[in-house]
């Protein structure tokens, strides 16, 4: 297994694509798109192969590759996936491939756009396949930076910002107090806020990683080795845990560290929002599992209750704001940050079913929110507004997009038949014994999700056709429709056959959780049911 280069192919294809793009002229738009399609397509195909080749009965880290990168610092370029990494790699590759097609209409500096997008997705995949803390951080930090130009150049201002045209308001726009003017931000402001917020979180996590490096005494960043041999006690362990948890939770984003995220989503172009909400935010959960859960299991048992408390804030606050927002991307952005609360609940319960559900939910949410952002982007491109009250009746103009949008909403609220349903049920079932109150709130949160998503659907597609929608048209070409169909197909396929992913995820969750709670791991019964 050690000589398999499958992970390298998945990881490096986007980077190679980005490097090749540097040498292509912006005038050859078709060539640029072709290169992006090919390099993301290689990752896409290879990650499906990864899912099917991954041996879940054996479990553990597979497809490992290990090279010494720096002897002095004890850094290894150590790739490998376990059951938690596989679905996330798959989600990243699907969203990248879809995102390349979603961005087909971009004409301004197209090669730079695709290069940044490929680097963003490649770095995200890099985090999911790194088994060395240094490279986990390396790719983590690397994924943050391309967001700035992607938002700043190809993003869009909010409606509130554009409406501030009088000289008075323009002066206000540049004043420091303007920071508190929610919903009226420029894309530059959103991009800077996102970058600084995530950098601040990253350096916090870096401090934790450096402390792990120092006090393990092993002179290594090797995660499996640290998990096995590193022992941390007392206050030091608590400090490391808190640094890693809050450092990574800021990208997750856990309430009250979420404020960069909806602003960033709203400013970003469609493909970036998709990757951002779909897989970039899950870097937080994933890194918390890799650091806190794996290296500091005892502290996780004691301290994960913090997440259980804060996730209520995420679920309720995100849902509440989404219900009152008028901007489509704000609604989807806040709904994402609300749904990330479910993942934290599933993780906090420290239960086999709920943690498996949480990982599955990360995958499911990536697809659902990816679809929503893709179609919100389409509506925005056609009507040049995201303001719901000034839209309506688009069903007649774009039946295909409307249909897909309804499917995406259904997926997002967890309709049976989509993979979100399976994941939500597992989270709720698993957390019930540990946190009944939070579980009830989470179920109520689903109702809230229905309320705001249905309201957005009604506002966009039903009712009277508005003036702005008059010249809108539906997706016409195969490259507009393909990404939507891919995401829907994946969401439904894994919803009908969740076993494909569940076995894989369980093989990753079991060894991690068995070190935290002393319970006999679950076994699969003849009918595929889970019993303790």
């Amino acid at each position: 297994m050690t000589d398999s280069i499958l992970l390298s192919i998945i990881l490096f294809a986007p980077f190679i694509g980005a490097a090749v793009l540097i040498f292509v002229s912006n005038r050859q738009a078709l060539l640029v798109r072709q290169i992006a399609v090919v390099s993301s397509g290689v990752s896409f195909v290879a990650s499906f192969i990864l899912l099917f080749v991954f041996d879940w009965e054996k479990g553990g880290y597979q497809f490992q590759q290990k090279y010494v990168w720096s002897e002095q610092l004890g850094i290894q370029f150590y790739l490998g996936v376990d059951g938690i990494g596989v679905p996330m790699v798959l989600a990243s590759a699907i969203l990248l491939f879809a995102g390349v097609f979603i961005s087909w209409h971009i004409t301004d500096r197209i090669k730079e756009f695709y290069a940044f997008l490929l680097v963003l997705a490649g770095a995200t995949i890099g985090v999911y396949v790194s088994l060395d803390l240094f490279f986990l951080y390396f790719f983590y930090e690397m994924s943050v930076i391309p967001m700035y130009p992607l938002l700043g150049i190809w993003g869009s201002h909010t409606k509130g910002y554009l409406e501030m045209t009088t000289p008075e308001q323009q002066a206000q726009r540049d004043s420091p107090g303007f920071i508190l003017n929610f919903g009226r931000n420029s894309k530059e402001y959103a991009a800077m806020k996102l970058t600084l917020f995530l950098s601040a979180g990253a350096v916090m996590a870096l401090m934790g990683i450096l402390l792990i490096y120092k006090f393990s005494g092993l002179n290594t960043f090797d995660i499996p080795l640290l998990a096995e041999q590193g022992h941390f006690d007392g206050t030091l362990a608590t400090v490391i845990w808190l640094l890693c948890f809050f450092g990574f939770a800021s990208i997750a984003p856990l309430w009250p560290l979420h404020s960069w995220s909806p602003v960033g989503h709203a400013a970003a172009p469609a493909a970036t929002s998709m990757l951002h909400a779909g897989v970039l935010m899950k870097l937080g959960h994933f890194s918390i599992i890799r650091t806190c859960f794996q290296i500091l299991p005892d502290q996780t048992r004691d301290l994960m209750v913090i997440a259980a408390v804060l996730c209520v804030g995420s679920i309720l606050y995100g849902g509440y704001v989404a219900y009152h927002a008028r901007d489509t991307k704000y609604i989807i952005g806040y709904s994402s940050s609300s749904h990330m609360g479910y993942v934290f609940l599933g993780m906090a319960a420290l239960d086999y079913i709920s943690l498996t559900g949480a990982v599955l939910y990360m995958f499911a949410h990536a697809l659902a929110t990816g679809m929503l952002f893709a179609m919100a982007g389409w509506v925005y491109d056609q009507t040049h507004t995201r303001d719901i009250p000034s839209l309506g009746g688009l069903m007649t103009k774009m039946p295909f997009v409307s249909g897909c949008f309804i499917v995406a909403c259904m997926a997002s609220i967890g309709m049976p038949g989509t993979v979100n349903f399976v994941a939500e049920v597992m989270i709720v079932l698993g957390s019930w014994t540990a946190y009944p109150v939070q579980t009830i709130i989470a179920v109520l949160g689903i109702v809230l999700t229905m309320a705001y998503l249905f309201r957005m659907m009604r506002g966009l597609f039903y009712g009277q056709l508005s003036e702005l929608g008059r010249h809108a048209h539906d997706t016409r070409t195969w490259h507009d429709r393909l990404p939507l169909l891919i995401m829907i197909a994946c969401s439904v396929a894994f919803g009908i056959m969740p076993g494909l992913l569940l076995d894989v995820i369980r093989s990753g969750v079991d060894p991690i959780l068995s070190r935290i709670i002393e319970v006999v791991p679950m076994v699969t019964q003849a009918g595929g049911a889970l019993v303790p």
Partner: protein
Amino acid sequence: MTFDLQLSLSDLLLMLPELWMTLWICVVLCVDFLLPRLSQRTIAALSVSGLGVVLCVLLGYYALGTHGLLFKGMFVLDGLALFFKIFVVVSAMLVLLASMDYVERFRLFKSEYYFLVMLAALGMMFMASANDLLSVFVTLEFSTFGFYVLVAYLRDDLRSSEAGLKFFLLGIFAAALLVYGISLVYGETGTFIFPDIAAGDADLTPGLVVGWLLIFAALGFKIGAVPLHSWIPDTYQGAPTPVTAYLSIAPKGAAFAILLRIFFSTLIVFKPQWVWLMIGTAILSMLYGNIVAIAQKNIKRMLAYSGIAQIGNILIGMAAGTQMGAEAVLFYLLTYLFANIGAFAVIIAFSQTSRSDEIEDYSGLNRRSPFLAFSMLIFLLSLAGVPPLAGFIGKIYLFAAAIKEELYSVLVVALVSIVIAMYYYIIVIKKMYISEPDDPTPIPVPGALQAVIYVSLAGTLLLGIWPQPFMTFSVAVAAGLLP
């Protein structure tokens, strides 16, 4: 005291790079006034080729492991000296190449410019080999004299004259501090030679403390650490840009050679005492440099303040006071060399067309010259410490050295200042990529500058993606440093 200097020819081989350099400087100067019709580009090519020969000799010495002492221990050739000589020669070569088009702006003395750059390089090569306090003083002043002239080279430009004057006055002041410090140390120990001072195990008397503090202050002036940084912003802004690039790299590197010899080889027994000095300067430099850089409107000034902050970062490695700390200092200097020279090369290329160094004028650079904008992006991100670029690995190396010595205070400040630094580097990126240009004419990049930018890009990416050979180099060089 009898004076007997016995030198054999083989001993002088240790000084071969310096001797060759001296000869070549004379050749360049003579060629210039003997053949007045020769274009300055030819002179530049002549200078660069001479430096190329020196670089080959130095690399050969490194490969052969040549080492030795000369003049009763005043001149030392060891790994550290070779490292810094290579460092100085590479930066001088890149600066000469980057200057070729800029020199057209000078009305007089075009070719003497190259002579002065090489003269300063020669002084700094001697600095790297200085093994006693007297040669520290002589070589330091020798290298600075070249810079006094170079900084004020734009004779009609008030800012350049101001920069020259400021640099000169404060430089002389620092030199006075240095001499006074040396005299105090000599009075307490009775010797100038570093190994003898280290072997003398004197107590830390007040005279010795004040003496070493004054020497540190003079060197702190060279590297521009807070609170001895006040000349940096004005001098950087006023000096001709290639000189600024040179000034921001080479003298700092050479001064670190001396700092490493003094604090790591000579004074390591007093580490518990001086570590606070390093921590204090590091924290002040990082905070002051990064916070003040936010407010800058001129890109040279911004890089000046960011340079102060970078020096603060390097001082973290000094504060660690270990083998690993020394390696991290050397490695970080390499990453800083490429990123900084590259950034200044972009500034030179940009100002050739626009005649401006204001950050505001960088608006829409991506539309005017995608190559320049992309290069600047890479260099600034490397300075900010973003993976997969050189600066990131350099910072991690420094932090790893510091955390092993449990220097938490300085680490927390360093991590916070990364976030602050991100802000002002990104402001420039925002101008280049997001803002639209006022004047959309493309910016041509001359061949020599292109070469410099390509070399810097290659260095920045290579050190970031495959740092192992360079780390091995730093480790080998720092091996004999601590007793």
